[in-house]
């Protein structure tokens, strides 16, 4: 199998989804790039292929009917995607940065997510919103949000946060097959990360976590680019004789309670790493749920390692300190780790 970058895996998934179903189309800002520019149209070339180049090539292949450059009008093009979905198309709009829910939230909050319910079950919403998340790209406070926790709080929306190219492709194809709204969150700092990705069409079910590493002493549940942090923590603790299980949630709404709780029942110990802001996020949801449903199996407190309760700073050193790292996880979980070491 060839190794390709995360962003190419996404591109491949979009390509295969469009090939398979001609109701699938893309819309967003500069996702083709240069629509109506003469010299590009004459050569059937796109320009940007999206701000990060993720959709590059799809415009020339499928035409501007199916790869639609939009004006900078997020509220309305996101709402238009809802309108197109409920009338039978399968739109895959791109919201360039998840921070732009600020100017487009209504489409998800009060329209798309509630339609099926408000209409008594008669509507289908085959809609996948692709968006980018995450700090670490020096993009500062307004372009670094990891807002999957907000999406996940809204009934009627599924939310996916892939951690690697293989998952990204399979999860995106699943999302596009869904007759429901899926917000698909791509960490911009993972776009260049390479991994093995089969060329054929395949899907990975939504709502199923991946156990990245089995272990019996301590469970670490995590999301997206924090998976690599968790793996590093596991490696380092292994040297101290602690056997860590790492669970990559993959889908944060609905998240895989079964896998998480089974793991905690086995290990009795849980750390959750979530790069989002600390309050009302997926980490708190997991900690609260495990406390409720597996209390008797817990041997100690559940640690959440998250961003601090601040906006994302620009300066490189501050931004690095903003994101959870293996060092920080180990430091903030000292109590658990010490307990485990002393019980050996």
């Amino acid at each position, binding site marked *: 199998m060839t190794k390709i970058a995360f962003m190419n895996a996404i591109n491949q998934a979009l390509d295969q989804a469009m090939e398979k179903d001609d109701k699938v189309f893309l819309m967003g800002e500069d996702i083709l790039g240069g629509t109506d520019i003469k010299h590009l149209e004459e050569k059937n070339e796109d320009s940007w292929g999206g701000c990060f180049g993720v959709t590059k090539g799809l415009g020339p292949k499928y035409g501007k009917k199916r790869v639609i450059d939009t004006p900078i009008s997020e509220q309305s093009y996101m709402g238009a995607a809802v309108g*197109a979905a409920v009338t039978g198309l399968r739109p895959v709009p791109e919201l360039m940065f998840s921070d732009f829910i600020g100017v487009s939230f209504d489409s998800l909050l009060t329209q798309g997510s509630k339609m*099926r319910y408000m*209409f008594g079950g008669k509507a289908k919403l085959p809609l996948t919103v692709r968006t980018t998340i995450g700090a670490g790209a020096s993009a500062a406070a307004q372009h670094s949000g990891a807002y999957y926790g907000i999406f996940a709080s809204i009934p009627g929306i599924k939310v996916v946060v892939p951690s690697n190219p293989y998952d990204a492709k399979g999860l995106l194809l699943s999302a596009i097959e869904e007759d429901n709204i899926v917000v698909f969150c791509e960490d911009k700092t993972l776009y260049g990360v390479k991994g093995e990705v089969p060329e054929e069409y395949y899907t990975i079910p939504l709502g199923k976590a991946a156990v990245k590493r089995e272990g019996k002493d301590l469970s670490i549940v995590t999301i997206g680019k924090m998976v690599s942090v968790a793996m590093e923590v596991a490696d380092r603790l292994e040297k101290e004789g602690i056997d860590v299980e790492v669970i990559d949630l993959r889908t944060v709404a609905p998240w895989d309670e079964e896998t998480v709780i089974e793991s905690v029942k086995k290990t009795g110990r849980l750390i959750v790493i979530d790069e989002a802001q600390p309050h009302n996020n997926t980490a708190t949801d997991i900690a609260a749920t495990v406390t409720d449903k597996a209390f008797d199996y817990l041997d100690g407190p559940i640690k959440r390692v998250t961003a601090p309760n601040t906006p994302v700073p620009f300066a490189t050193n501050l931004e690095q300190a903003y994101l959870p790292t293996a060092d920080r996880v180990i430091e903030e979980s000292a109590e658990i780790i010490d307990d485990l070491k002393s019980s050996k």
Partner: protein
Amino acid sequence: MKKLTAAKAKEAYEKMNDIRNFENTLHDIFAKGEIPGFVHLYAGEEAVAVGVCSHLTDSDYITSTHRGHGHCIAKGCDLKGMMAEIYGRETGLCKGKGGSMHIADLDKGMLGANGIVGSGFPLAIGAGLRNQYLGTDDVAVCFFGDGAANEGNFHESINMAAIWKLPVVFINENNTFAESTPQHYSSASPTIAERAAAYNIPGEKVDGKDFMAVYEAAGKAIDRARKGEGPSLIEYHTYREYGHFEGDEQTYKYDSDEEIAFHDRDDIKEFRAYALKKKLFTEKDAEKIEDKSVQDVADAVEFAKASPIPQPEALFTDVFAD
């Protein structure tokens, strides 16, 4: 554009009556405390919804507003299903889960009343995009109020409809108020219609109490959209009979004799007189229609009241499709 045939005229007269009776009845029922929530009545504006929707079939789409009953009826939604919905019954068009502000019927191309002012705009352009994408000659009609014309979605959506030449018709119901706020205060432009120029599309202000004027202006715009020539904006001057919602004391009414005179015009009576004069139907036809309408609405109320409330499990279903 098709001329108004006798059959169409009758149908239109039926629907106008249905709307008026439906809303008058709700007004009484609400006062009696039989239905809860926010109820926004469409009475007084019948000519607009019916005049526009007379050009549409089930495969055309409309988007609506919080003041949606008129659009629903004009687009062919079932009175019983609507009334049951407003009563919160299992037999409602949305199983009682939506209520007055969310009545929808996708089979009729009715994409839902909408509790969020201005959020019909993008849904309409989405439906228009779908029609264009699939190569149909169906249109999408977006009803919106004078107040809604100040939402960002107005601007974003009309611009997109214009650049993509979408088959969408924007129908402004300028009933001179948004809640208690007069349009002359909230909009910098004297008319909503003139804003069309900012998007290079046709814009026209039309007497919304005059059914034939509504019908003809809408016909032109809808034809244009069907032919792939892009969107239009029509502003219909109208006036709501009741308050913004039931319970509104309307202390903001009236500022002038003109306003009172305009309010007092009855679009249904005017159309009746016109149709009789043009022999589109007879006095007797009219009476039959009127009686039947009263009866149909009464039956709808009966039906709603006799219907069961939703099963407790309904709380949890219909969030996701499988």
